[in-house]
């Protein structure tokens, strides 16, 4: 298996359960594992009955497992503070208000949240040397897909900005007559330096996601979830990402044959429709089914996690490179 493993899917299908179970499975097989939750609802804390922060922390009773939770809200706020601090150092008091307004505005745009999350993704992927496996529990499909399309998209933007900036600085250098100091200089231009830094980040993310990450989609055996999964697979394929398999969650357990009450009839009907969906899944979807997990009576926590993990047919050993 590749180093970075993402679990995605529609809201409420059990991504947290699946990703936690897989992380536990990896850890128990002796793979140093980090579980990263990016869902603002943060259910990892509930699964392990332990609260996690922005920094990796050891999970109790699982020697090889660390977990962390990313809060984009905090990330945005920190980025804002950092930018303002830099402004305090650089900008004359007369201009502060003007620029301040602009910065505040930028941090309220809809993209800010995703960008902050994305920065953190890059951060985690960059600094994950001590782990053999990083499991991402992502937010529901739409958000995640947008997130994963970001490097491609932002890369283009940044390249354009960089080009424009270089062009104008070059002209300013040429326009400096005789011994006059040019208004802007290519060497040590902080803007070019920053843009280049960003460009490197984005291409790192692009390469890592394409070459070093595997994706699993969690599905429930119902129409809506199936449709959404189909779209998600198409989009991930479009981005050139590697969808390794589908994990089916919340299958209805079949009643014993001698039971005939109302409950049993309901269950039998339900199982029948689900079986049809499952067959459809096998026939029409190209990624293979890697797990079929039945609905649990209790919440999946503690001991249950091991049981679910045993049902996951996803290998844990790192790819040999």
């Amino acid at each position, binding site marked *: 298996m590749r180093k970075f493993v993402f679990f995605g899917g529609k809201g409420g299908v059990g991504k947290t359960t699946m990703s936690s179970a897989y992380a536990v499975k990896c850890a128990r097989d002796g793979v140093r594992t980090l579980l990263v939750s990016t869902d603002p609802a943060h259910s990892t804390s509930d699964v392990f009955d332990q609260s996690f922060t922005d920094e990796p922390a050891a999970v109790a009773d699982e020697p090889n497992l660390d977990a962390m939770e990313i809060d984009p809200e905090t990330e*945005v706020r920190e*980025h804002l503070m*950092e*930018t303002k601090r*830099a*402004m305090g*150092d*650089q*900008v*004359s008091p007369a*201009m502060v208000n*003007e*620029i301040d307004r*602009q*910065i505040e*505005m*930028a*941090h309220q*745009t*809809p*993209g*800010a949240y995703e*960008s*902050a999350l994305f920065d953190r993704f890059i951060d985690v992927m960059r600094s994950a040397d001590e782990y053999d496996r990083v499991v991402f529990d992502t937010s529901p499909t739409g958000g995640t897909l947008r997130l994963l399309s970001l490097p491609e*998209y*932002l890369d283009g*933007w*940044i390249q*354009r*900005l960089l080009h*424009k*900036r270089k*062009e*104008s*600085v*070059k*002209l*300013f250098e*040429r*326009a400096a*007559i005789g011994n006059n100091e040019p*208004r802007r200089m290519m060497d040590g231009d*902080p*803007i070019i330096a*920053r*843009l280049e830094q*960003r460009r490197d980040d984005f291409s790192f993310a692009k390469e890592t996601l394409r070459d070093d990450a595997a994706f699993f989609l969690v599905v429930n055996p119902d129409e809506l979830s199936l449709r959404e999964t189909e779209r998600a697979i198409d989009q991930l394929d479009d981005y050139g990402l590697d969808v390794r398999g589908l994990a089916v969650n919340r299958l209805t357990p079949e009643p014993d044959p001698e039971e005939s009450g109302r409950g049993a009839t309901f269950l039998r009907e339900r199982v029948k429709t689900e079986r049809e969906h499952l067959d459809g899944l096998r026939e029409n979807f190209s990624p293979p089914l890697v797990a079929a997990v039945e609905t649990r009576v209790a919440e999946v926590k503690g001991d249950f996690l091991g049981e679910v993990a045993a049902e996951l047919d996803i290998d844990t050993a790192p790819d040999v490179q």
Partner: protein
Amino acid sequence: MTLAARIESFRELVEEWLRGLYHGMISHPAYEKIEQQAEDDEDAFMLACFPDAFGIPSPISYYTAELLPYLEDEFEAWERRMWDRGSLLERKGHQYHF
């Protein structure tokens, strides 16, 4: 004053005039044009960075906001030019000194 010295000083005068003439007619307007082109490019850059200053939402303003502290002079000049500029024609025509 010897003849040689008078010729010498006359040549110096002519040279100075020629240099001034060349600078005023050829090189200065050229530099001015280049500088204006640079400003135009910079305007395009600023607009691509901060379209939300004009109410156009930008997908990357989160990233460009961190450039702002280093863009103080540019930002000010940009805003001034934006207010100043009647039309593109005016801006482009300006450089011909009619």
